[in-house]
């Protein structure tokens, strides 16, 4: 029922794009509330899949190729006229008239007239046995003629021409020839070398290829007998298929006075609007951005833009990528981005294996960071990855040749489909993004290709995305099964890394604001210290100020390590393990005065145990006067940089390891991190400082320093791995800045650097790529962020000692500040004391 309220939409043309427009408009216009659709088609059948037309010769029926059956049009209330081309558009009255005299008024008119085969003006094209390759009817004619033909030729060595040549072989002709005017096959997609590889493949299958051949005339009386070329040669054939390009069907538009392009095609703007605002043109009949888009994917995008705009959405048709991949007679061919880019604007990597018939070319930007385009012949498995890498301007790994050669030894180069950004277009025909697919697979359980086809229409167009969609299905399932997204706790549905970024972007500085903005509930002992660590890593404000004291773990809350019996231990910083006799004396005096047990730690410093919480500020007051500062032994932060004496005393030393250790410790002191950080600097290869068992370690060489990262002792000892060799101190510090900040920003809570690296996809190779080669382009930012921590460093204990409000919190009983915890008891041990045993 058409009511007066509905707008009339008339679509001229029932090809793939015309059909797609109907499908999209119906999907958007729920219950056909706003629009009534009328469709006119010239062909006798409903829209079918012209891209896979050759499958008709492989046994697929016309029904198999149908986009949607007749019932679909009826069910959706579409008035469909087949075998009835529109012959007149009356733009004054806004109505059209068909060949059979049907007159329909329109509010919107959509021209989806497509294209016809381009037939060059050669003498003899009208002869019997000369065909075009465009419709199912054309194929029926070719099929019936082939039964009595022996030798066939195809004029045109482009995409469709080669498909037609395959069809001739399949139809059982004795000889099948391809005649191309250009000096190579698929001239729009392939370079000479790629064409050469493809040509050899095709010839091995029995096709005869003639390149750089200009046809003069088609000979014969009524029926074709051969082709005469301008170079004097002659080819005897009794059938010819012309596939020399397309000619947009713009004759109706031209008759109606719409603006058309001198070389054919209906001129439209970025919104597919013709020179008449009520009339749109989409698909191969339209000239958008000064060109005809002769592929189905951009046609679908045009359909989407017009349908969306009719529904009131802002949408624009942007210049569309013309990359293609197809299988030609068993040979994969792909061409993407700018396949022909040459030096100096780019560097080209070529791989050719004649024995296997494989040719690959990638064009990389001169700075090595971006993929500009490429060509694949014989093996196009990497097509989708490369296309996405190209489209998304993904930064390339240092060995970009691995993109086409695969990784040769070592860890996997780059990463798979799961490393693509969420908005990467996987199915370009239907504009389906990775996120949409992941959502369907993960949330809605559509985890097979068939289910995804139904749910999203991915893989239903050209089918080129199918392998990639399979990879995504696997990737999502792997993530579901093996990898659980590490959200912080019940109060935050984010990983630490996500929360880190959110806190940073929003400039939040208190726990309450973080919980109110991104969390729920009242927090807990997991998210509180994790957030405290994030706030400290980002802003480096005193960890006990504002609302931050009660969110610190017990050690951080009192800036000391809680020990058996509820007393605390005190560890002042002794950078690099170097300490003067005067300072040693002060430590002894303080220990005597407050009854503390003293011991040398594993990190080359001195720990004072057994301090009552109320004594902590007094102890620190005395230590600070003597020039000590907090050692952060209580924090998830830099502990110590252990050193051997190096060239200052050791007869083997090759560099000054103590000085470098002190410099590093003073640089990174106070840096809050997901877990504690330990370091070591050795003055020679004998490695007395055990740098290879540290989160970051340096070993002197006669040329400079070798930098190691991600080692640790602990329950699962792990050796550190070499990040870079023989660098000077400044380079080592720069790379360590990047390494540490990258770890601080991306590790899970309480993950040491070794665990973090073990979980990292790509392992040390990837870490090197990020830290040393800066493939993510974040090096400078990481350095800046770390420098902020260095610049804002302040001794936490000095701030507490000088701040009466903070100092007041250091008492066991708030109502009796001078009373010590009476349950604290010590037992004697080798002239010192120790805590009483657990009960």
């Amino acid at each position: 029922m058409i009511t007066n309220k509905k707008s009339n939409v008339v679509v001229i043309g029932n090809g793939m794009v015309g059909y797609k427009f109907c499908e999209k408009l119906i999907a958007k216009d729920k219950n056909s509330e706003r629009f009534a659709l009328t469709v006119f088609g010239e062909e006798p059948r409903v829209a079918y899949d012209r891209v896979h037309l050759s499958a008709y010769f492989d046994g697929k029926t016309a029904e198999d190729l149908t986009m949607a059956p007749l019932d679909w049009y009826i069910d959706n209330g579409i008035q469909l006229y087949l075998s009835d081309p529109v012959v007149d558009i009356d733009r004054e009255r806004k109505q059209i008239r068909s060949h059979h005299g049907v007159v329909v008024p329109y509010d919107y008119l959509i021209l989806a007239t497509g294209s016809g085969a381009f037939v060059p003006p050669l003498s003899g094209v009208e002869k019997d046995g000369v065909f075009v390759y465009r419709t199912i009817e054309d194929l029926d004619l070719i099929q019936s003629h082939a039964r009595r033909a022996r030798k066939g030729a195809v004029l045109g060595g482009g995409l469709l021409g080669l498909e037609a040549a395959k069809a001739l072989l399949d139809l059982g002709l004795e000889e099948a020839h391809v005649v191309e005017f250009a000096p190579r096959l698929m001239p729009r997609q392939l370079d000479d070398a790629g064409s050469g590889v493809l040509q050899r493949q095709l010839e091995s299958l029995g096709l005869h290829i003639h390149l750089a051949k200009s046809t003069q005339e088609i000979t014969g009386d009524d029926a074709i007998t051969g082709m005469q070329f301008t170079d004097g040669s002659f080819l005897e054939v009794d059938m010819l298929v012309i596939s020399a390009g397309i000619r947009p069907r713009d004759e109706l538009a031209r008759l109606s006075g719409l603006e058309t392009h001198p070389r054919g095609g209906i001129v439209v703007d970025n919104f597919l609007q013709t020179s008449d605002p009520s009339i749109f043109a989409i698909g191969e009949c339209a000239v958008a951005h000064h060109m005809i888009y002769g592929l189905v994917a951009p046609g679908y995008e045009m359909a989407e833009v017009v349908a969306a705009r009719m529904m009131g959405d802002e949408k624009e048709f942007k210049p569309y990528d013309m990359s293609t991949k197809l299988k030609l007679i068993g040979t994969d061919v792909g061409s993407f981005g700018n396949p022909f880019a040459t030096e100096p604007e780019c560097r080209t990597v070529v791989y050719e294996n004649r024995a296997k018939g494989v040719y690959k070319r990638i064009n990389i930007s001169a700075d090595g960071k971006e993929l500009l385009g490429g060509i694949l012949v014989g093996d196009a498995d990497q097509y989708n990855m490369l296309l996405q890498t190209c489209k998304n301007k993904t930064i390339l790994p240092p060995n970009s040749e691995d993109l086409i050669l695969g990784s040769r030894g070592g860890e996997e180069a780059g990463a798979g489909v799961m490393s693509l950004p969420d908005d990467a277009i996987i199915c370009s025909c239907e504009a389906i993004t990775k996120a949409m697919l992941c959502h369907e697979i993960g949330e809605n359980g559509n985890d097979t290709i068939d289910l995804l086809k139904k749910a999203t229409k991915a893989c239903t167009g050209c089918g080129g995305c199918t392998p990639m969609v399979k990879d995504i299905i696997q990737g999502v399932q792997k993530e579901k099964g093996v990898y659980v997204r590490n959200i912080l706790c019940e109060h935050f549905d984010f990983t630490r890394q996500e929360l880190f970024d959110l806190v940073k972007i929003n400039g939040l500085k208190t726990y309450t604001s973080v919980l109110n903005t991104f969390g729920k509930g009242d927090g807990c002992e997991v998210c509180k210290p994790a957030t405290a660590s994030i706030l400290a890593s980002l802003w480096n404000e005193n960890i006990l100020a504002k609302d931050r004291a009660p969110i610190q773990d017990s050690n951080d809350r009192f800036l000391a390590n809680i020990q058996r019996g509820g007393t605390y231990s005190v560890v002042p910083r002794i950078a690099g393990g170097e300490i003067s006799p005067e300072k040693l004396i002060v430590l002894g005096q303080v220990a005597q005065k407050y009854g503390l047990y003293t011991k040398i730690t594993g990190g080359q410093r001195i720990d004072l145990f057994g301090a009552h919480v109320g004594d902590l500020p007094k102890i620190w007051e005395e230590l600070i006067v003597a020039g000590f500062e907090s050692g952060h032994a209580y924090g998830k932060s830099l502990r110590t940089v252990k050193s051997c004496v190096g060239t200052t005393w050791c007869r083997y030393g090759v560099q000054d390891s103590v000085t470098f250790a002190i410099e590093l410790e003073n640089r990174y002191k106070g840096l809050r991190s997901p877990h504690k950080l330990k370091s070591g600097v050795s003055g020679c290869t004998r490695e007395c400082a055990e740098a290879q068992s540290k989160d970051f370690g340096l070993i002197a060489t006669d040329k400079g320093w070798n930098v190691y990262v991600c080692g640790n002792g602990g329950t699962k000892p792990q050796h550190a791995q070499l990040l870079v060799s023989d660098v000077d101190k400044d380079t080592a510090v720069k790379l360590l800045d990047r390494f540490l900040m990258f770890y601080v920003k991306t590790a899970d809570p309480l993950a040491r650097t070794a665990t973090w690296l073990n979980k990292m996809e790509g392992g040390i190779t990837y870490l090197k790529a990020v830290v040393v080669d800066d493939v993510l382009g974040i090096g400078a930012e990481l350095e800046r962020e770390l420098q902020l921590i260095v610049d804002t460093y302040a001794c936490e204990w000095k701030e507490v000692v000088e701040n009466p409000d903070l100092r007041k919190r250091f008492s066991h009983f708030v109502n009796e500040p001078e009373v010590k915890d009476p349950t604290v008891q010590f037992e004697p041990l080798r002239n010192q004391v120790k805590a009483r045993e657990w009960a």
Partner: protein
Amino acid sequence: MEVTAIHKDKYTWLAACPVNSVPEDGGACVLLNGQQIALFNFTRRGEWYATTNECPHRQQMALSRGMIGSLGNEPKVACPFHKKTFSLKTGECLNDEGYQITTFPIKVEDGVVYVGV
């Protein structure tokens, strides 16, 4: 400060400390009649809680230094030693069966925190 007792309903209410002695969304320990009591100022929920200061796991006087939070809707405190968590309402250990802490009634009047014993 002076410990003063108020006899009203069934509890003996002992004045523990001024409200501002207990940090917001945190805890503090008071000594009341020789007993160590942990007070929790759960500002976020607008609630106050009182428990023993001793964690029954290793008999450490430390609950007042623990972090508070929630499990579902249940308010809780985590012992700083080994992260046993206890309901602030019932005293029940939430992540290890067999432990229990004592809770006390608590109220705030005129800026003073009172604990009922």
